C-alpha cells in the first residue's frame, strides 16, 4: 500500500525555512568564486550573492538583492523550475545535492515582509514619458516596475479583476499562495504604477488614442484550445485556463464532478489534476499522448501528482467524447495504433497548450502563423512604439522567462523614449 498525501486546495505543499534552518542550508553553500548558480538564472538573479548575505547574517541584504533584480522574487522562489536552472548548475551537486536555492529565496523574501522593507524606490524627479502595459502578468509587471524605477509613468490595463495573470488565475494556490503574488504585486504598486482592472484592451479601449508614448503587450495566452474531436461541445469539457480560473475564483464552490481526466503532459496538466484532486475529486487521471520522457512537465511535479494519488497514463491520445448532453465517457487511441482506452468521467480538462487571443485588436502589430506577436529578443515589434514579451511572444514559457522579457523590453522602451527625446 502506498501512502497518499491528503491536502486542502489552499494549503501549501511545502514548508519554508526558519531563520535557523535557513542558516543551516546557507552554510552548505560552497560560496563559489565563479558561482555557476548565478549564471543559471534567466532573469539574472544572483543567488550566490544573496545566499552569501544569508550566510553572513544579513537576510535583509539578501532580500534587497532579490527584489532589486526581480520584482517577482517571491513568486519565482515558489514556482521557478530551479531544478533545471540555478540548482542544476550548483557546484555542490559534485558533492551531494544542490543548495535549496528557491527555498532560501523564499526565506529572504519573507524577511522583507516581516520587516516591512520597501526596497524599490522611484527617482525623486519623474519623467514625462507615459507607457501602457497590456496585461498584469509577470511580463508586464516586470516591464512596468523597470520603467517606474527609471521614473516613467506607467499604466497597466488588465482584463481581470486582479493582477498576476497566470499567477493569480492559473497556478494552483498550494504551490503559489495568493498572498505571495499579492506581496509581489504590491511592490509594483508601491512604485506608483497605475492599474486599470476589468479593462480589456481592444474591446472598446483604443490605446493609440490615449496619448501613450509606448505600449508593451504582455497579454499571455488566454485563447483556450479544445482539440477538434467529436463531442468537444459537451458540458464537462474544459480548457485548462478555464478550469483553473474557475477553480481559483470559485474554489470549493466549483462543481465539476467526481471523476476527472486531464489531457496533457506539461506542468499545466499537473496543476489541473492537482487542483481537481485537492478540490475533492475522487478519481483523477492524467492521460498523455507521448511517454513521460518526452513530456515537457518536470518529474518533481509528476511525483507530486502521484503522491496525491493521481494516476498517469501515457501514449494515449483523445479520440472522442461521448454523452447525451453532458460528458459520460472519453475514448482514447493508443500511439501504437492497437491499444485503446475508455474512461468514464464527469469532466475532461484539455491542458494541451493555449493560444493567444487576437492580438491585432490591441495594436496592429505583425503576428506569426500561430497568432503570436513577432518580437525580437529585446522585445521590439514591427511597430516602433510597440513592444512585447512573455508568453504572447514565446508561445508559453516560464514566469522567470516572462520577467526577463519584461525587463529587456523595458530597456528597449527606455532607449526608444530617450532617442525620441521624451524626457
Amino acid at each position: 500500500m502506498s501512502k497518499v498525501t491528503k491536502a486542502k486546495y489552499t494549503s501549501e505543499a511545502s514548508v519554508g525555512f526558519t531563520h535557523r534552518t535557513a542558516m543551516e542550508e546557507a552554510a552548505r553553500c560552497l560560496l563559489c568564486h565563479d558561482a555557476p548558480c548565478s549564471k543559471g538564472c534567466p532573469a539574472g538573479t544572483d543567488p550566490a550573492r544573496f545566499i552569501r548575505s544569508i550566510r553572513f547574517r544579513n537576510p535583509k541584504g539578501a532580500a534587497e538583492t532579490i527584489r532589486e533584480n526581480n520584482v517577482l522574487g517571491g513568486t519565482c522562489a515558489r514556482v521557478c523550475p530551479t531544478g533545471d536552472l540555478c540548482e542544476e548548475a550548483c557546484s555542490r551537486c559534485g558533492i551531494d545535492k544542490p543548495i535549496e536555492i528557491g527555498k532560501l529565496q523564499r526565506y529572504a523574501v519573507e524577511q522583507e515582509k516581516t520587516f516591512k522593507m520597501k526596497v524599490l524606490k522611484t527617482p525623486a524627479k519623474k519623467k514625462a514619458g507615459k507607457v501602457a502595459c497590456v496585461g498584469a502578468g509577470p511580463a508586464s509587471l516586470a516591464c512596468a516596475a523597470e520603467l517606474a524605477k527609471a521614473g516613467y509613468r506607467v499604466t497597466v490595463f488588465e482584463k481581470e479583476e486582479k493582477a498576476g495573470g497566470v499567477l493569480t488565475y492559473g497556478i494552483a494556490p498550494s504551490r503559489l499562495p495568493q498572498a505571495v503574488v499579492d506581496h509581489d504585486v504590491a511592490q509594483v504598486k508601491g512604485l506608483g504604477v497605475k492599474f486599470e482592472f476589468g479593462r480589456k484592451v481592444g474591446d472598446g479601449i483604443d490605446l493609440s488614442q490615449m496619448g501613450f508614448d509606448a505600449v508593451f503587450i504582455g497579454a499571455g495566452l488566454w485563447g483556450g484550445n479544445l482539440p477538434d474531436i467529436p463531442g468537444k461541445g459537451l458540458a464537462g469539457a474544459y480548457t485548462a485556463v478555464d478550469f483553473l480560473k474557475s477553480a481559483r475564483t470559485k474554489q470549493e464552490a466549483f462543481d465539476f464532478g467526481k471523476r476527472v481526466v486531464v489531457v496533457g503532459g506539461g506542468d499545466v496538466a499537473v496543476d489541473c489534476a492537482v487542483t481537481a484532486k485537492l478540490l475533492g475529486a475522487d478519481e483523477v487521471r492524467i492521460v498523455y499522448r507521448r511517454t513521460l520522457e518526452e513530456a515537457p512537465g518536470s518529474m518533481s511535479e509528476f511525483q507530486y501528482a502521484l503522491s496525491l494519488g493521481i494516476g498517469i497514463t501515457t501514449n494515449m491520445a483523445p479520440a472522442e467524447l461521448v454523452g447525451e448532453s453532458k460528458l459520460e465517457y472519453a475514448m482514447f487511441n493508443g500511439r501504437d495504433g492497437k491499444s485503446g482506452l475508455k474512461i468514464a468521467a464527469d469532466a475532461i480538462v484539455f491542458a494541451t497548450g493555449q493560444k493567444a487571443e487576437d492580438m491585432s485588436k490591441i495594436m496592429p502589430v505583425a503576428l506569426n502563423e500561430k497568432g503570436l506577436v513577432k518580437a525580437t529578443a529585446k522585445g521590439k515589434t514591427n511597430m516602433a512604439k510597440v513592444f512585447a514579451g512573455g508568453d504572447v511572444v514565446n508561445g508559453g514559457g516560464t514566469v522567470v522567462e516572462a520577467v526577463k522579457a519584461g525587463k529587456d523590453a523595458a530597456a528597449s522602451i527606455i532607449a526608444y523614449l530617450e532617442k525620441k527625446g521624451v524626457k
Partner: protein
Amino acid sequence: MAVKKDLSIKYLGIECENPFFLSSSPVGGNYEMVAKAYEAGWGGVFFKTVGVFVADECSPRFDQTNKEGLPWLGFKNMEQISDKPTELNFENMMKLKRDYPDKVMVATIMGSSDEEWRALAKMCEQAGADLIEGNFSCPQMTSHAMGADVGTDPELVTAYSKAVTETTKIPFIAKMTPNITNIEIPAIAAIEGGAAGISAINTVKSITNIDFENMTGMPVVNGKSSISGYSGAAIKPIALRFAAQMLQHEKLKNVEISGVGGIETWRDAAEFLALGCRNVQVTTAIMQYGYRIVEDLKSGMMHFMDERGYGKLDDFIGAALPNMIPAEDLNRDFQILPDFNEKKCIGCGRCYVSCFDGAHQAIDWDEKRRKPKLNDHCVGCHLCLNVCPVQGCITPGEIKWKEGRQKTEVALKRNYD
C-alpha cells in the same frame, strides 16, 4: 537603491570611510591584495607586520578546527612576520597610499631593539602611513626579543612604544597579546610609552589537533609541530572580553581601541563597537571567504542601523559597555522558567537528556506523547533552551521570585535566533 547609512568614523583623528580594516597578516601583504581589498570596499589596512628581521617560514603552517561539518570554528597558523624585504614592504605601502589616498594605511612594525623600532618608525613616516601599529604580540617568533614575549613585559612595551613615539608624530597603536591574565597591564604600559591606541587581540597560543600518524600536533612539519596562534570565530569571545576589560579600566577608558578576533559578520563587528571599540579588523574570515565579505559587513551594518534608528556609528558605540557588570552585582532574586511550545516541539527529548544529565532533573518525559513536561525542580538555568534544535520552541516564560526577595521589573531577552 539599497539602504544607505553613514558608516564613516574618525579613528585616532584619521577619517575612515568605514570601520572595517584588514588586520595585519597575509591578507594585507602586498600591493595587489590590498588594492583588491580596497576595491571590494574595505576602509583601510593594517599592513602585514614588517621588521628588520625577514621571516623564514615553515611548511605547511596552517590547521583548523571544525565541528559537525560546519565552517572553521578556529584557525591555527605558524606564520611569523612578513617574509618580504623590508624596503619592498614600505614601497608597497607608499604606492598604495599614493593610489588610494582616501583609504587608511596603518603600517604594522616589529623591532627587536630600540634602534630597530626607531628605524622602522622613520620608514613608516617616509612611506606616508596614516597610523603605525606596533606588534607586541605574535606568539610564534623565533626570538624572545620579539612578539608575544615582549607583549607580556610592561617595561619593554613602554620602552619600545617610546622609541616609536619619540621618533614620529604619527599616532601609534600597540597590538596586544591575549596570552596573559591582565591585558590592562601591558596596555597601560603602552599608553605610558606614548601610544594613542590599542589593537586587541593577536592570536591565542594553541595546539589544535594531534596527528596520530606522526604523533605530533598539527600542522606536521617534518614530523614535528609547535604551539602557535589560534584565530577565527572561536576567539571572538576572548577578544570581546579583553576589549571590555580594557575599556572599563579607569586608565584606559578613553583609549581608542581597535577590536580584532573572530569577526566574520556585521553582527560580530557591531558587538565590538557596542562594547566601545572604534575600529575593527579581520583576517581569518578573509582567508576563508575572501575580501567580498565586506559587502555584507557594510550592508548588514547599515540595515542594523536603519532598524535601530542610528544615524551614525557613534550613536551606539559603547552602548553595551555599562551593562557588563561584575558577577557579584547581578540580580539573583529570580528564576525565569522555560516555556515549552507544544506545537513546535518535535519530541526529540534533547532537553530531557540535558536537563537530567547536566542540570536539575526538572523535566519529566512523557513517553507516550514524546513531550517534555517541566516539574518543580527547575532553577531557570536555560540549558534546555540552549540545546533545543527547534527555533522558538523553548522560550523564557514565567518569572519565579525566590522566597522573601523583593519583586522588581525584570529586563529579559525574548528573541533567540
